[in-house]
């Protein structure tokens, strides 16, 4: 009943976009009320759809034909299943919180109305993408969220840094999108000219598409995922994207847009499963990239001074976890982590926004001791930190544990190992972040104060699911795996992603690892006379590591200096030598020969033959033109006369010859 009307959910924020665009400045709250109202209604609708899904679990898959050409039908449709329902509810909830929070955070901003218009459009596009039943529609939504991200990162475009960051984000993701487009085209032809995702999944899992094509499709699509979900080495845009307003960082760069890539993998999982042969275990390209991503991003989070950048690298690392989960066949775990991560990462970002609002600086070196000034922000931030670190029984613990379990049971030992190291690092850098921000002495200027009610209420509302949402897949409950499943109807052989039973020993171990991370962080950054204090600067090896991390593994240098510079430097010289000595020799020899042939050609063929013809054509055209010029008198009635005469003659011919 209600699930068939799911298309209303993206439609409402889309309408709101136009309302704010045209009438926003005239509304009493500058357009904010329109955004909040529509996103709120969408959230209620999403909850109703979710409730219906929990009741009868009926998949809705219908579409309208947009236009058709021969047997190719381009459609626009909706596919409502567990994954969609989960995403709809999550996106609308986080978006609603961010809308409410923004009324406080953006209060008095020069482009307040414009900001809310972009937020509404973003929400609409994301929901449109989530509902898509075909790859083309998914791609349209995907590009729209990319556009909104660009608009919002560059919200304060008067500063050069911000507009550069927006461009960097746009170009980096567009680079990945080339892969997405090519992958979509590959799958379109591989699946017999259809974009329909369910059909593509079915054909892929039935091995009706050759493995080579599936691998090509999966690799190309994964390039898009690497751009959008910030996987190594295309993760460089995400930390810079922190130039945008903090609510945007929470909504786009933590909870929703960046998970679009993960969502794509989860949605078209049949292609990835067969293309990368995930069921076989061992090593695949996706797992390789995800493994690198989660460790290097976690390393970078240690050395950032900007609180938002810590969270940004943490996001990159967590996206690595989600992709890793999908790459080892732990579909449910990956999607579950996406779900839990959205709540606590949005909470952490909004918390950091609240701090920035109070001290007017992003740098943790100008914070400290904020616990007593802003208690609500402090406690919610701590909840978010514990949830992200994976402390029992908060949300992150359950989902991270499932990923590790999946990696171990599905024979991906190195992902399991990297995951454990990552869990330790996550707990440690988040511990550092909390200690530097909220404990110790206040190092900034002015008098910090707690944020207004519009900002703290969303924090509390996000803290509640951050604590409890993990419990829905706890042992004994295990509802999530039941509600959100990867199913493809009509398969020759039934396919099920592997599920594993909760393993208490492993859970205890991963919990101990995370706790150890927090303890280490406390030892280094909280105790005044800790032995490890200052080790970063005293020990040369650590100092070198520190510099290496501060320079972000020299990746930006590699992209700009390495790729561009090496072409200018040795490679260019080597190329020049080869060019001068070898190629020039060949070219010269060819040249002499060519010259002789050319001389002959010029004298005989060109001058006499071709030129004769060309000149002849020219002269005849010119003379014909001279005659026809008389006809072009510019007088309308003469043209009309010729028209009627011609019609008359044709009519006469018709009568005479039939």
């Amino acid at each position, binding site marked *: 009943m209600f699930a068939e009307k799911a298309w209303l959910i993206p439609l409402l924020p889309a309408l709101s976009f136009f309302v704010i665009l045209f009438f926003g400045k005239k509304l009493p709250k500058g357009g904010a009320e329109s955004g909040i109202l529509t996103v709120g209604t969408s959230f209620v609708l999403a909850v109703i759809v979710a409730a219906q899904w929990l009741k009868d679990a009926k998949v809705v898959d219908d579409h309208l034909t947009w236009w058709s050409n021969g047997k190719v039908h381009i459609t626009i449709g909706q596919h409502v299943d567990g994954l969609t329902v989960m995403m709809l509810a999550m996106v609308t909830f986080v978006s609603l919180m961010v809308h409410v929070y923004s009324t406080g955070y953006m209060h008095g901003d020069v482009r307040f109305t414009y900001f809310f218009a972009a937020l509404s459009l973003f929400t609409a596009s994301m929901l449109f993408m989530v509902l898509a039943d075909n790859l083309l529609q998914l791609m349209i939504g995907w590009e729209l969220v990319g556009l909104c991200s660009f608009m919002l990162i560059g919200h304060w475009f008067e500063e050069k840094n911000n507009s550069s960051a927006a461009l960097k984000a746009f170009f980096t993701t567009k680079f990945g999108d080339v892969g997405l487009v090519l992958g979509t085209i590959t799958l379109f032809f591989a699946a017999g000219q259809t974009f329909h995702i369910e059909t593509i999944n079915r054909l892929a899992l039935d091995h009706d598409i050759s493995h080579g094509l599936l691998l090509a499709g999966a690799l190309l699509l994964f390039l898009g995922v690497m751009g959008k979900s910030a996987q190594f080495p295309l993760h460089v845009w995400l930390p810079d994207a922190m130039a945008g307003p903090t609510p945007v960082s929470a909504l786009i760069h933590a909870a929703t847009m960046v998970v679009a890539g993960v969502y794509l993998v989860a949605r078209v999982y049949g292609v990835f499963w067969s293309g990368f042969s995930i069921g076989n275990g061992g090593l695949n390209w996706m797992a390789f990239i995800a493994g690198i991503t989660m460790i290097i991003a976690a390393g970078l989070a240690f050395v950032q001074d900007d609180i938002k950048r810590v969270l940004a690298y943490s996001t990159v690392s967590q996206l690595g976890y989600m992709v890793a989960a999908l790459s080892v066949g732990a579909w449910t775990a990956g999607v579950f982590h996406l779900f839990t991560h959205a709540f606590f990462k949005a909470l952490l970002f909004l918390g950091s926004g609240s701090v920035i609002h109070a001290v007017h600086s992003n740098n943790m070196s100008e914070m400290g001791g904020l616990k007593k000034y802003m208690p609500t922000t402090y406690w919610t931030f701590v909840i978010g930190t514990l949830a992200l670190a994976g402390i029992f029984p908060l949300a992150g613990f359950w989902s991270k544990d499932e990923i590790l379990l999946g990696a171990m049971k599905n024979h991906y030992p190195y992902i399991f190992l990297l995951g454990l190291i990552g869990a330790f690092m996550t707990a440690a850098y988040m511990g550092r972040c909390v200690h530097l921000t909220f404990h110790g002495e206040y190092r900034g200027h002015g008098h910090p104060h707690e944020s207004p009610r519009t900002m703290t209420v969303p924090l509390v509302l996000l803290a509640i699911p951050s604590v409890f949402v993990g419990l829905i897949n706890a042992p004994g409950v295990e509802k999530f795996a039941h509600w959100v499943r990867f199913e493809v109807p009509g398969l020759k052989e039934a396919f099920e992603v592997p599920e594993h039973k909760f393993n208490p020993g492993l859970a205890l171990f991963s919990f101990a690892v995370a706790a150890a991370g927090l303890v280490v962080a406390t030892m280094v950054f909280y105790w005044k006379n800790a032995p490890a204090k200052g080790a970063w600067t005293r020990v040369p090896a650590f100092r070198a590591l520190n510099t290496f991390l501060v320079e972000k593994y020299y990746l930006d240098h590699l992209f700009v200096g390495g790729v561009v510079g090496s072409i200018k430097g040795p490679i260019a010289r080597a190329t020049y030598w080869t060019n001068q000595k070898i190629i020039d020799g060949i070219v010269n020899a060819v040249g002499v020969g060519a010259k002789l042939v050319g001389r002959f050609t010029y004298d005989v063929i060109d001058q006499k033959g071709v030129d004769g013809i060309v000149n002849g054509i020219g002269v005849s055209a010119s003379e014909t033109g001279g005659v026809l*010029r008389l006809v072009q008198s510019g007088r309308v009635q003469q043209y009309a006369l010729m028209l009627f005469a011609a019609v008359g003659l044709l009519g006469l011919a018709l009568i005479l010859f039939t």
Partner: protein
Amino acid sequence: MPITEYLLLSAFLFCTGVYGVLARRNGVLVLMSVELMLNAVNINLVAFSARLNDPAGQVFALFVIAIAAAEVGVGLAIVLLIYRNRVGVNLDEIDLMKG
């Protein structure tokens, strides 16, 4: 139903229109002559529609009327602009497109 009279009327109107388009110097009168031609066609369409008992002809006639209205709108706008620019609508003088 005898149809000859209708066709004769239509042919007469059409020829008048053609003459007007070709011979008149005034732009407005040329436009009016075009209308005459269109209406001659309409008479033909309606007459055959009645004769053959097929409403398609009448539908076409309605279309022609609608399109003719749009055409006159555009045409008069052009004539008006020409008048403003050159103070006169003598078609002989308007030969900017002379090759």
